[in-house]
């Protein structure tokens, strides 16, 4: 297939578009082995600002692209420790029999412990508080894992130049789309396309802003 330059909005515009800047280039692959080799070749050629979009996580792609390990586990650890602290503080404060008053919300009485005396059991019975502390640890860790992952990925994402391409729609189906940004200092429309073609790309398209 020859190199196709696509102007995505042209089909419904009557007036010619203003010339738009080049965002980058995408190359379509239909084989997972080829795209991993292509990614490795791109990295070997000095490219850094490129990515592979795939319908599922590819084994070995992290090394081929050079993706550094995420800091997500540390976020989860921090959130988990926060949850544990909250659980511990909540149970110990509310069940304790000490005179301590925290100013409450405006117009409300101060927050004070409410020591229940049940069967003469100690007020601060930590073993009985463990279920609540544990559940809060898990809850906040899970929040950290999910929301941390989405935020680190900069999701939700409202718009991306790639979304204009019909070819890109198959990145969630059965194709592997290698994308190079024009910001990369090695980027050159012809040379990059030639390199990707050599690696077995089915087609390459220029991506405009």
């Amino acid at each position, binding site marked *: 297939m020859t190199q196709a330059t696509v102007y995505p909005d042209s089909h419904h515009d009557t007036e010619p578009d203003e010339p738009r800047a080049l965002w980058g280039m995408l190359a379509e692959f239909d084989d*997972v*082995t080829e795209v*991993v*080799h292509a990614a490795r070749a791109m990295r070997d050629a000095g490219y850094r600002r490129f*990515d*592979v*979009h*795939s*319908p*599922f*996580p*590819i*084994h*070995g792609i*992290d090394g081929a*692209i050079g*993706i550094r390990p995420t800091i997500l*586990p540390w976020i*989860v650890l921090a959130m988990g420790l926060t949850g544990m602290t909250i659980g511990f503080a*909540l149970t110990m404060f*509310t*069940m304790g029999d000490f005179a301590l008053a925290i100013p*409450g*919300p405006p117009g*409300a009485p101060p*927050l*004070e412990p*409410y020591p*229940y005396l*049940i069967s003469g059991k100690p007020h601060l019975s930590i073993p*009985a508080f463990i*279920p*609540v502390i*544990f*559940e809060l640890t*898990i*809850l906040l*860790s*899970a929040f950290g*894992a*999910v929301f*941390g*992952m*989405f935020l*680190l*990925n900069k*999701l*939700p*994402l*409202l*718009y991306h130049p*790639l*979304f204009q391409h019909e070819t*890109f*729609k198959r*990145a*969630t*189906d*059965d194709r592997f*789309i290698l994308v190079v940004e024009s910001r990369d200092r090695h980027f050159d429309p012809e040379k990059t396309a030639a390199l990707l073609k050599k690696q077995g790309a089915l087609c390459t398209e220029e991506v405009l802003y």
Partner: protein
Amino acid sequence: MATLTTQPEPPTPAVDNTHDDPRSRATLVLGGLNLTTLTDRVTGIAMSRPQLWWLAAISISLSLLGYLGLMIGYLVVTGPGVWGNNQPVAWGFPIVNFVFWVGIGHAGTLISAILFLFRQNWRTSINRFAEAMTIFAVMCAGLFPGIHVGRPWLAFWLFPYPNQMAMWPQFRSPLLWDVFAVGTYATVSALFWYTGMVPDLATLRDRSKNMIGKVGYGIASLGWNGSSRHWHRFEKAYLLLAALATPLVLSVHSVVSFDFAVSQLPGWTTTIFPPYFVAGAIYGGFAMVITLAVPCRKIFGLEDIITWRHIENCAKVMLGTGMIVCYAYSIEFFTAWYSGHHYEQFTFFNRPMGNYMAGFWAMTICNCVIPQILWFRRVRKSWVGVMIAAMAVNIGMWFERFVIVMTSLSRDFLPSSWAQFSPTWVDISMLVGSFGLFFTFFLLFLKFLPTIAMAEVKTVMPQGHPHTGPGGTMRPDEMSTDYRPDEQPEHGGTH
């Protein structure tokens, strides 16, 4: 192990993937599906017009849900007296139904989290499905304690919040632990389910032809674009969630069992309850997975993705956990006898011989006798046999909770305070109506959301990983079910 060939030709796939020898088993996904046809098959359900049976099923479910709504309205305006609950049987049907539904809700997280950590690749076809089941079952479960509190409009008193009474909930009470355990479980399960679904929602977004689908799936998929950097963090988040959900799922039903075990009542106050309840929850949950999966795979034409091997594996898990449950039943009798405790001994004499003996024998036959047919390979291979076993467990597990709640409460220490519980029509209606709640959501899920975790299934297909044979060719074992991409032998060698 076969020697390596340089030819990229896969070995002839056998049609049967239930074979005991992994070397002659076909791949997990049958029917020669590749990445494209797999997406077609799964998204086809959401993209096509609803079928007649679906419309009929959702009408029935919605009617039942409406009936449940009416019953709750009747309860709220009249009071808990519409139930058969009395003193001493104050827990009645609502708690039986709560434990029943929350138990069903355990198989989903077990399949998604625990089997994920154990690298059981076959889970990928059914985990989405089972997680959806979990969430809807936990919704049904959450309903019953909510309306059982007597004044449901004050159910928020369960939560620790600063209030004008200057009171806090009692943090040493298992009933409060339950609030935290079930609340956390519902939240984490929903997050786990949704997170795993985002890439598949993006597939539906890119496949949608109409505006509603594009906008709806577009918002739900958060702009997911399959970037490898995103996948890297996604996989890490998924692994961490699985690691967090595993102790969570075990803790939730343990905490539910503490509601009983921490009390002083004969028949309840035993230390075997937490493991026994967890095993029972998995048992009942897998029965429900089978009950739902066997018809769905047929109706939606998903037999190549949810293969019979999946059903057979679920049946084996059911058989295994069923044995644990039956062991727990018998050890309870032994402990009662061995304790020398009169009230305990009476309770366990009363179970098979007393006022609720029908419930006890229904439980024993359904949970301990009928599922034993699954020992036979021929039964496991027939849908009738597997469905009989699964339906028996569904019924039996409800009766288990009935027996636990009713026998101990209705016959406690003092004969003068004994009383019989019998359900009213409102009790029965609410139990039936809760199935309407469950199936309404489940049918909506089947129709509008990705039923199969496509992205995950693709990773276990031979097309899903780079070939590692010499010169980038396919190794013969890549076609096998037990292929582990992470454990690669040296190139050109055998293992």
